[in-house]
Each structure stands twice: as structure tokens, then as C-alpha cells.
């Protein structure tokens, strides 16, 4: 929901998704091409700055969206940097720091951070419907795009249904004890399964009623200053790659 809110409420939500896609792609390339961990961190920092200062994404929202990925990255870095060594005696376990690999680990983590920042820039500044339209223009398979459209829409329908069901169950003490909670959760899953089936039928009928007999087609949004934005994105992206290559 945070991603969704940011994507629709930021200053650049109506900017051409192609421009933002180009800039994000350049960010990933720059992160990969970074000659040193410092350069990759510089790229990551630049991308975060552009998202926060340029697009106007609230730093708090950005951090909350990035937190799970950062946690995963931290755990991965730790597992790469530290290894367990078992001694011959019973219960002899020692932690060993992989000092010789520290540069490579720092390189890997900083690049991942750069790539993560690039992806967060794209996802937090661009509504998913714009991204789907961009993928359509890039020739992504129709079936995949139709699934994306339906999943994205039904995500909100079902999150509302889950909220309503949970509230109704709570009002009748459905989550009063651990046992009741488990039972209520099972009942809700069963109820939603039936709902999903019924709603898919209803959507099918609604599509037929509006003359659909193939892929789900929608009018593509027109963006003002699309060419200018794409040119700026190219320039900004090239600067990012330059920064990654030049920084020591």
C-alpha cells in the first residue's frame, strides 16, 4: 500500500514511465558498473536523493518500503562475511570473519544497494497501471499483462474483503484466543476462496458485457513533455553511469 500511495501521490507520478524506466535502468547499469563499493554507494545515494528530493517521496515512506529489502540484504551480507567453524571437540563452534573476501562482499552489497535504489525509484514513482502500459509497448506477453492487470485490481478488492471479514469476526470474538484465531483464519481463507471463484466469474461476465473476447485492452495515457523527460532521463542516467565509473 505504501508503494501504491507513493506511486500515485509523488510529483513525478504523471511523468512518462518510459523516462523513469530509462533512468532506473541506467541506475541498475551504473550500480553494476561501479568500480568500487564507494562508487556503488554513491550511485545508490544519488538515486535515493532523486527519489526523495526530486519526486518528493517522503523519507519515512521510502525507508519503510526499503526496510524488508535492506533487512534481507543485511542478513545476506552477514552470512557472506561470517562463517561458522566447528572444532573437533563437542560443542566447539567458532565464528570466523572472512577478511580476505571483505572487499568482494562490500562490492556485492553496495551494488545490490544501488540496484535496489534504482528499482525503488521506479516502483515508488510510477503507478503500476503505467508500468503495465510500458511493458505492453515493450512487447511483453499479453497473458502476463492481463494477469498483472487483474491481480493488481483484485489485490485491493480482496484486501478490503479481508479487512471486512476480519472486523466481522473480531466483533464476534473470533480472535479472542489462539485457538479461535486459527479457526477464524481458516474460515476466512475458505470464504475468500469461494469469493475469488465467484468474482472471477463476475469479471468474466462483465468483460463479455463490454464486448471483450481477447486481451484486456485499455487506452494508453498521454504524457505531456514525454520526449523532453526521456531526454532528461537519458542525461541523468548517463551522469549516474559516469559517476559510477569515475568515482574512486
Amino acid at each position, binding site marked *: 500500500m505504501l508503494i501504491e500511495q507513493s506511486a500515485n501521490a509523488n510529483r513525478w507520478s504523471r511523468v512518462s514511465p518510459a523516462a523513469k524506466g530509462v533512468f532506473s535502468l541506467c541506475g541498475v547499469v551504473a550500480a553494476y558498473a561501479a568500480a568500487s563499493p564507494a562508487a556503488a554507494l554513491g550511485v545508490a545515494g544519488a538515486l535515493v536523493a532523486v527519489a526523495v528530493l526530486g519526486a518528493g517521496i517522503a523519507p519515512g515512506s521510502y525507508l519503510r518500503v526499503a526496510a524488508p529489502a535492506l533487512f534481507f540484504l543485511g542478513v545476506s551480507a552477514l552470512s557472506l562475511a561470517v562463517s561458522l567453524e566447528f572444532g573437533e571437540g563437542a560443542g566447539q563452534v567458532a565464528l570466523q570473519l572472512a577478511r580476505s573476501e571483505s572487499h568482494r562482499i562490500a562490492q556485492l552489497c553496495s551494488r545490490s544497494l544501488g540496484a535496489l535504489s534504482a528499482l525503488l525509484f521506479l516502483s515508488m514513482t510510477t503507478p503500476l497501471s503505467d508500468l503495465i502500459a510500458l511493458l505492453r509497448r515493450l512487447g511483453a506477453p499479453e497473458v502476463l499483462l492481463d494477469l498483472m*492487470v487483474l491481480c493488481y485490481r483484485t489485490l*485491493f478488492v480482496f484486501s478490503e474483503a479481508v479487512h471486512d471479514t476480519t472486523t466481522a469476526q473480531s466483533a464476534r470474538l473470533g480472535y479472542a484466543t489462539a485457538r479461535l484465531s486459527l479457526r477464524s483464519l481458516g474460515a476466512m481463507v475458505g470464504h475468500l476462496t469461494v469469493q475469488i471463484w465467484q468474482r472471477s466469474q463476475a469479471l468474466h461476465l462483465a468483460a*463479455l*458485457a463490454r*464486448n471483450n473476447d481477447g486481451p484486456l485492452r*485499455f487506452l494508453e*495515457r498521454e504524457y505531456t513533455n514525454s520526449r523532453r523527460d526521456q531526454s532528461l532521463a537519458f542525461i541523468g542516467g548517463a551522469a549516474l553511469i559516469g559517476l559510477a565509473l569515475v568515482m574512486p
Partner: protein
Amino acid sequence: MKPTSDSILELKQVGFRYPDGSVGLDGCTLSITRSSRFALLGANGAGKTTLFLHLNGILRPQSGTVSFSGTPLDYGRRHLHALRSRVGLVFQNPDSQLFSASVREDVSFGPMNLGLDGRSVSNRVEEALQAVGMTECAEKPVHNLSYGQKKRVCIAGVLAMRPEVLILDEPMAGLDIAMQADLSDILDRLHCEGMTVIIATHDLDFAYQWADSLSVMVQGKCAATWEAERIPDVLRELAGYGMGIPRVAELYQRLICSGFSVSEGLPPRSHQDLLGVLAKVHLDRG
């Protein structure tokens, strides 16, 4: 109601059973006049939605015929395509109809399916959004809209296909008083533009006030059809179908029965009309 040459949609002895054996329609006969406002009344499960799905060609009758403009429906792909572009159907639950997470995209879905070029689709989308007063919400995500706004988007999605007939299944369900009034205005505007508007409703007061003719469905059958003006004469019959009677008509009859003399003219069909009648009587007495 007898089929007339001006009937836009007709059902003759239409029967339909669902795969589980339940009766959808049972020898249903009905005729809907072109450019009229038609209200279909009936209890839950009476067959109103099933009937609507037949009118749009989604369901095919197992017996009897459905005709559009005097011609029995052809269920070939090309003919269905033509029918569905002329007969638009708005479902009861907006979340069952809205595909895209973007308002503008969803409204464009129907016209895109008609194979129109981008400019024509764009024009139609703007017109349809304007018709339902949703232009300002065009860029909003669908999930951030209120229930009433979602209903309007659903109507815009069908209007963008420029149908001759607009069918709405329980359009007033779940709407507050202000939204009901707004929707009623939208329907009136569409009717004034020559569109045939058909609704299913449980709200007899609204149906009596709004419709040119009303039908009652009972267990898959079209039990009775009346012109709205005739409703005061058939109150007992109407009550017999378990639909109640319009409160305005009931009150008006009570007033007449208790010796209240009113000048000749059509009986009032809305609360506002009745107040007008009473004000006139008051003036006459003064």
C-alpha cells in the same frame, strides 16, 4: 404489455435453467418500448439479473426468443458484438465490473473492445466521464473512490460504448440519499437524450416516481406490467406480489377517500408532486 412496433427489446416465453437446476426464467414475456424508462421489480432471486443477462446476449434462452428492434437475437460472434455495443449492462457490484485500477483506463475498456482508434476512444472516455460527473476523478486510482463514485465509473464505462439501451442492475443499492439523487439526475439526462433506460430495483417509491412503465417478476416469470400512471388503480394487485405499494400513491388515495377534493390531473408520483398538489388545494381553499 403487448409487444409494439416501437419495442426495442422483447422476450417471448423465454425459459432458462441454471446448471444446478434452479429456475432463472420461466416462460418470461416482456416488451420494452424504445426511449422509455423501464423499472423491473422483484424479490431477490426472482430472475431480474438473469433477464438482464439475456438482454445483453450473455445468456442464451433455452426456450423462447429474445428480440432486439424486432429481430430475434443471433448468437454468432459478430452479431453479439453488435448487440453488446448497443445494449449496455451495468452490474450491481462495481467491484465485479471494474477491471483496471485507473478510472480513465477502465472507462476506455469498452470502446477499445469496439476496435476504435485512440482519438475516438479518448473522446468517448471524456464524454462519458463528463456525463456522470467524474472528469475530476479521471486520474484517480479506482480503489481510492467511494462506492457511489465506483458506480458512476461503471456507468461511464458502458456509456463510452454509446449504447441505445442502458441496463442497470440495482443502481441505487448501497448509495446514500444524495448519491441516489445524483444518479437519478444522470438517468433522467440520458433518457432525455433518447436512451432507453432499464433498471432493476427493490425501491418501489423510486420506480413509481421515475419509470414510464414497471414490471414485476415472480419466480422467473414476468407477472405483470403497468404504465406508471396506472399504478394508483392497481395498488391491491401490486401489494399482492409482495412489493408493497408506493407511499405517495397510498397517501394520495387515503386523502381522496377521506373527502379531500383535488383538481383533475395525473396523480402525484413523488413526494414533491404531492406537496405541490396539497399546496394547490390550500390555495384554492384560500
